[in-house]
């Protein structure tokens, strides 16, 4: 019984520490989605693959989203004709290279600044490397889901007759929705989809700003409950592992350089906890696992996990996701393994 009570205390403790950061992330991402004009941003992005990948990795600072919010944004970027290098680099880096995540990692690992620093560096390396790799593919459409390609073609046509009337523009979302249920997964919903963006210049009355405010609140609630639900599950798993898995098992897994990294990577993929708060989750393993493996968790978790898989399937063909997964996993393993030998 007391074990159960301990587990519950740890569970609540994780939540109490994480919810402020979750709320902050959600508030920022909701407000920036309303404020930042992606179209202007896109015109400023460099064309060179390497620079593009670097730029893409850093857009995370403008869209502080975790791995649930980045997929819809990356998809919008692709749809707007951003090069795959930029979009993929953004997809992989945004969940880590953003102010809220860096802050929460600092809160958790301030005593070990190298973890915070290396989390950023390793994530950047991965994002840029894979961004460059993707730029080799000249035609984006080879990588994408058929449905997305259809939409891309549609939008390209749309762009060609730029001077279309507002009525036509308003019809865009309905047309698109009927063909694709994929719209459904966006955690960053309707506000920034192209239809609304196109409408933007015309709608400037006070009524609209009130409506925007309403959408902002709705978006905050929506993301909070979605990410919060994930957080509750993740915290429950962490607390259970800490209290109920026999110490011998945890120690024998956690003290070895190789098994600890593999175990933490597996955990990162399964637990799917939001990157804004995953450092608190990782804290619960600090005392028993090698710091290399903690780093592996922090770098690998935000790039790919079960929850994000569903979202990524809305962009890429399954084959591409397997490639992505394999390359990232190897990079993370190699880098953290090297780290654990040097430190």
């Amino acid at each position, binding site marked *: 019984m007391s074990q159960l009570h301990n587990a519950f205390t740890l569970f609540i403790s994780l939540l109490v520490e994480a919810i402020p950061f979750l709320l902050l992330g959600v508030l920022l991402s909701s407000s920036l989605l309303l404020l930042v004009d992606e179209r202007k941003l896109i015109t400023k992005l460099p064309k060179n693959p390497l620079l593009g990948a670097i730029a893409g990795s850093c857009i995370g600072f403008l869209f502080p989203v975790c791995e649930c919010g980045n997929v819809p944004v990356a998809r919008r970027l692709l749809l707007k004709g951003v090069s795959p290098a930029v979009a993929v680099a953004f997809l992989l880096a945004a969940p880590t290279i953003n102010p809220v995540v860096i802050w929460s990692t600092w809160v*958790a690992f301030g005593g070990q600044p190298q973890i915070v620093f290396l989390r950023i560096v390793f994530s950047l390396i991965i994002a840029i490397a894979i961004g460059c790799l993707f730029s080799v593919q000249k035609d984006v459409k080879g990588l994408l889901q058929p449905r997305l390609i259809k939409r891309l073609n549609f939008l390209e046509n749309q762009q060609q007759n730029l001077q279309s009337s507002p009525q036509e523009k308003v019809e865009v979302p309905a047309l698109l929705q009927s063909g694709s249920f994929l719209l459904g997964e966006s955690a960053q919903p309707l506000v920034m989809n192209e239809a609304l963006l196109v409408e933007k210049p015309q709608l400037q009355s006070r009524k609209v700003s009130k409506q925007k405010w309403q959408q902002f609140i709705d978006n905050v609630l929506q993301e909070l409950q979605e990410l919060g639900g994930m957080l509750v599950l993740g915290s429950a798993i962490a607390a259970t592992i800490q209290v109920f898995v026999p110490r011998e098992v945890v120690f024998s897994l956690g003290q070895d350089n190789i098994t600890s990294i593999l175990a933490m990577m597996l955990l990162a993929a399964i637990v799917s906890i939001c990157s804004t708060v995953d450092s608190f989750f990782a804290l619960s393993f600090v005392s028993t696992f090698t710091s290399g493996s903690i780093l592996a968790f922090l770098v690998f978790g935000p790039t790919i996990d079960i929850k994000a898989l569903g979202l990524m399937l809305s962009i890429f063909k399954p084959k591409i996701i397997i490639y992505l997964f394999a390359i990232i996993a190897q990079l993370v393993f190699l880098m953290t393994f090297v780290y654990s030998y040097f430190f």
Partner: protein
Amino acid sequence: MSNLSSSVKKSGNYRLTQLLSVLAVLAWGILLLKYAITGQYQLLIHPNYFYLMLFTSILLLIIGIMKTRKLLKTSISVVDDEQHLTIFPPGIGSSLLLLSAIAGLIIPPTVLASQTALQRGVTETLPLTSYQPQAFVTQTRPEERSLIEWIRTLNAYPEPDAYKGQPAKITGFVIHVPELPENYLLLSRFILTCCAVDAYPVFIPVELSTNRQQYPPDTWLEIEGAMTTHTLKIRDRSDTPKEKRRLVLKANNIKQIPTPSNPYSYQ
């Protein structure tokens, strides 16, 4: 349009999920406020984050109240064109949040004790997450050092024999470890760097003149005595007990004390 009719059909369901998410947000606002007012937050998080928690609680309450007013005002809500959500079916996330908040309101947090300490592996070294002392500074007199300060001192200058004979008075809770003789116990405390999840147990072995059964595990003691050194075999953060020369407190005066309201040390 077919979209519109399905929207109307869905609106009942939609209102329910909206209501759930508002309740979840409000419940968490109330729970955090409760922890702030009762001081129970000390058992959960590092006090540095007190204001962050308080601010979050107020913000959650504001968001919740605003949305409640909105929900009450409009009889039929307009369903978003776009369906969100694939991670959970609608309402599951809110229900999880709501349930955990209600549980938190009913069940008070507990003080971590010897069981958890043994599970995590006790040590005489500072946690990885804490700020490592860079220099060896001893301004406090030995008998005024707390258990944590002793550990810190020992970490900065890890030569047990250097402290031999120094007087000490420390408080902590009792841990029994089977690998030690019957007249030894560990006096331990948790160090918190972020939240209870990373609470890190440190200890100093205590040599008693009697059997340790007199002081059952988890009893809080204030022990006065003098530091000495012994070679002891303790299974700290490894699978096998390690024999090592350790700093040991030889107890002269033992006083049982109630569990302090802030039982953890914070770093």
